[in-house]
């Protein structure tokens, strides 16, 4: 075997060994509220919002790359670093905010599980407790490796959206063109258009992702030497996520928008509206994709929240500990699942309101998290030679500022 060939194979093996965290995080990002937002974007504006996909990919990659790099260089989680660099008080309030926000997200994910299976005629009073149990078991019984395999498999199921998109028979040329053209000036003046852009960006970059990604890079034992592979994992994961989003928008644009259905109120709404237009298979794939995404996200959020909070505040954490050794960790984890799922069993719950609230909470917490991340990745004492480059900083700060402005706009308009 030639040296070159051997080197290539070695690098490929290394890449496959490191693959996972970035890909999983980006996939989980396409959760129930995410799928709803993309569907809504397609239904309401057709192909007109596809131009957002490229800037969204860039920001997503920039932010996720920082989290992964911090994990590989320091070997510590994001909440650990925030605690060590910014002190106890800041960490305490940030962790409270994170718990509240993530609780809202957990509820939204279980709502996604319930409504997707209701499309198949299952009662939520059976489905939600069952899903909660599965989520609990996956984390408590699984090892990091086995969980990662389950999650990577779940990521693959997102392809169902690509197939649904193909079944919708869109106008490919128009869609491709809309992706690379500048937004039209008239659109920007309309309120609902701006609102939708904000929602698209907001649903793609969430605070929990940064904590989760960094923690799993650390957990996987990725070090600086393998970081180049981790970076590819992040980039490919983000691109994959955006491609999925693109197909969801295209599927809804080609069917719902074209047929004058401009207003949907949930992701299941979108699935139902697709049925007469794109056929039973597209409908089933859409619903199954939603179920997969919601369950997937519901499995990750509670455990990653418990880890982040306990590590930041100095409580014992880890599934290798017994209950009495790490009570706060287990209580927090269990409560997030039980309460998050339990809320859905209350009859006549205003689900839309809760989902909006959880996104607002995400929006409030996110700027703080991003600013901390930027400060940390620019700290030479912490990152050594791996601080942000000047060009990277420009893009990253621009992303942060745009995110903050968009969030403020969204909240002012909502309030």
């Amino acid at each position, binding site marked *: 075997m030639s040296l070159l060939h051997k080197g290539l194979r070695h690098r490929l093996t290394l890449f496959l060994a490191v693959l996972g965290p970035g890909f999983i995080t980006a996939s989980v990002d396409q959760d129930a509220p995410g799928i709803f937002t993309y569907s809504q974007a397609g239904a309401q504006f057709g192909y007109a919002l596809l131009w957002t996909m490229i800037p969204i990919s860039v920001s997503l990659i920039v932010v996720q790359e920082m989290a992964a790099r911090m994990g590989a260089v320091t*070997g510590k989680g994001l909440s650990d670093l925030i605690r*060590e660099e910014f002190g106890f008080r800041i960490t305490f309030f940030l962790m409270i905010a994170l718990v509240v926000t993530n609780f809202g997200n957990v509820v939204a994910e279980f709502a996604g599980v319930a409504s997707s299976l209701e499309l198949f005629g299952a009662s939520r009073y059976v489905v939600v407790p069952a899903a909660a149990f599965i989520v609990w078991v996956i984390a408590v019984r699984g090892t990091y490796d086995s969980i990662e395999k389950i999650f990577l498999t779940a990521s693959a199921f997102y392809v169902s959206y690509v197939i649904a998109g193909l079944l919708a028979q869109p106008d490919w040329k128009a869609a491709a063109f809309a992706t690379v053209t500048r937004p039209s000036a008239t659109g920007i003046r309309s309120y609902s258009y701006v609102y939708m852009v904000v929602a698209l960006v907001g649903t793609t970059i969430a605070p929990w992702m940064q904590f989760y990604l960094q923690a799993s890079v650390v957990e996987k*034992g990725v070090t600086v030497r393998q970081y180049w592979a981790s970076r590819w994992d992040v980039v490919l994961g983000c691109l994959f996520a955006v491609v999925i989003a693109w197909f969801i928008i295209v599927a809804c644009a080609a069917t719902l928008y074209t047929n004058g259905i401009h207003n949907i109120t949930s992701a299941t709404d979108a699935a139902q509206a697709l049925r007469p237009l794109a056929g039973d298979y597209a409908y089933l794939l859409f619903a199954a994709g939603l179920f997969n995404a919601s369950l997937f996200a519901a499995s990750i959020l509670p455990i990653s929240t418990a880890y982040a909070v306990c590590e930041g505040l*100095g409580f014992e954490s880890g599934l290798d500990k017994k209950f009495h050794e790490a009570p706060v960790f287990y209580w927090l984890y269990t409560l997030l699942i039980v309460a998050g799922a339990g809320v859905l069993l209350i009859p006549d719950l205003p689900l839309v309101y809760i989902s909006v609230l959880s996104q607002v909470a995400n929006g409030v917490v996110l700027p703080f998290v991003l600013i901390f991340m930027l400060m940390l990745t620019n700290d030479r004492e912490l990152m050594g030679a791996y601080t942000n480059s000047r060009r990277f900083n420009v893009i990253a700060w621009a992303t942060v500022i745009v995110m903050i402005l968009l969030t403020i706009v969204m909240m002012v308009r909502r309030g």
Partner: protein
Amino acid sequence: MSVVALSELLGATVRDATGTVRGRVREIAVAPQDHPTRVAYLIVKTPGGERALPADDVKSCGGTVRTVTESGQWSAYVPSDGVLLLKRDLLDQQIIDVHGRKVVRVNDVEIESTPTNGHLLLNVVAVDVGARGAIRRLSKGVVPSFTLRLLLEKIPPRVIPWQFVDLLETDPARRVKLKIAYEGLAGLHPADIADIVEDLPAAEREAVFETIDEEVAAETLEELDPDVKVSIVESLDKDRAADIVEEMDPDAAADLLGDLAEEHSGEILKEMEPKERREVTQLLEFGEHTAAGRMTTEFIAVPENGVVDDAIEALKTFEGGREALATIYLTGPAQKLSGAVPLVKIAISSPAIGLSQLSEPYIACAPDTPQNEVAALFDKYNLITLAVVDEHGRLAGIITADDVITMLRHRD
């Protein structure tokens, strides 16, 4: 004598001998080279820049620090690697709680102040890792300090006395200056050290393995999770790695080197002593999942015509692992395995009895026996050790019961 918390001192106003406010406390420094726990100086932020206020000048401390000297006598603060800065190096950082055998995060630091000759002696006595320190820091500046003190007294303290604290420092030069040697950690059982090490970030793991005694490091390495083991050894410099690997049991060393990337294992082997290198290379040539891959070449073999006393002499000079002592093997002409004597029989027999009289039927297997069959033999014959015999009937090595337990536990 009273105890003051670091978080109370930080930000406290400083009044000099004239009673004038001169600044605020920004940091507190301990110089371990002069005294392991004594506060050397307080760094005071004054309008004229940062000053190092010698701890000997402090008359009283708490919400306000009063000094016996005037501010003009305080020298300018010059940053130094050789001092431990309590806020930067300790507060909110992780440390090893040697007594509780785990990694914990510091919520606050307790400093004891003892009046001596008109000034105070300040000593670090403990770190607070419980709710008391947490609540103190949350409420600082929000709740009046008197009320806060009353409230905090009601919270049971969770503190770790300073002698049980091992600091984590990743810079080797600074470890030397701060006299961090992980003595407390190294005194623990290797299995406990391994648990602690697995909870640490990569750089801190490396720091521990660069510092602790090679023998302890070797034993700890054997207890670690294979992935962690590999990443630690690959991060150490080759000399150090070779020193540690030499101290490991040859079978564990061979397993470890087999898991490393070829470039790393080759370089480590090159640095090893010839004797250890030979043993390990031999083992490396066999498949990992065979009897030979699991065996150790450190065992006790005595000529079959020897007596009990010869066996006892061999025991005295044996340098291998204790688990290999359970059976004394007997060899005949050309090193052929001819018998086995359990250690118990040696202990209860008189020194002059011939070993061949004590010999029992033994169980042996070939070097290429798959590990599953090895486990089956242990199960069937209730073995403690199993002889591995080459094609000429010579004893090549032995497998001990603990190897089998490890093997079974790691089989997925």
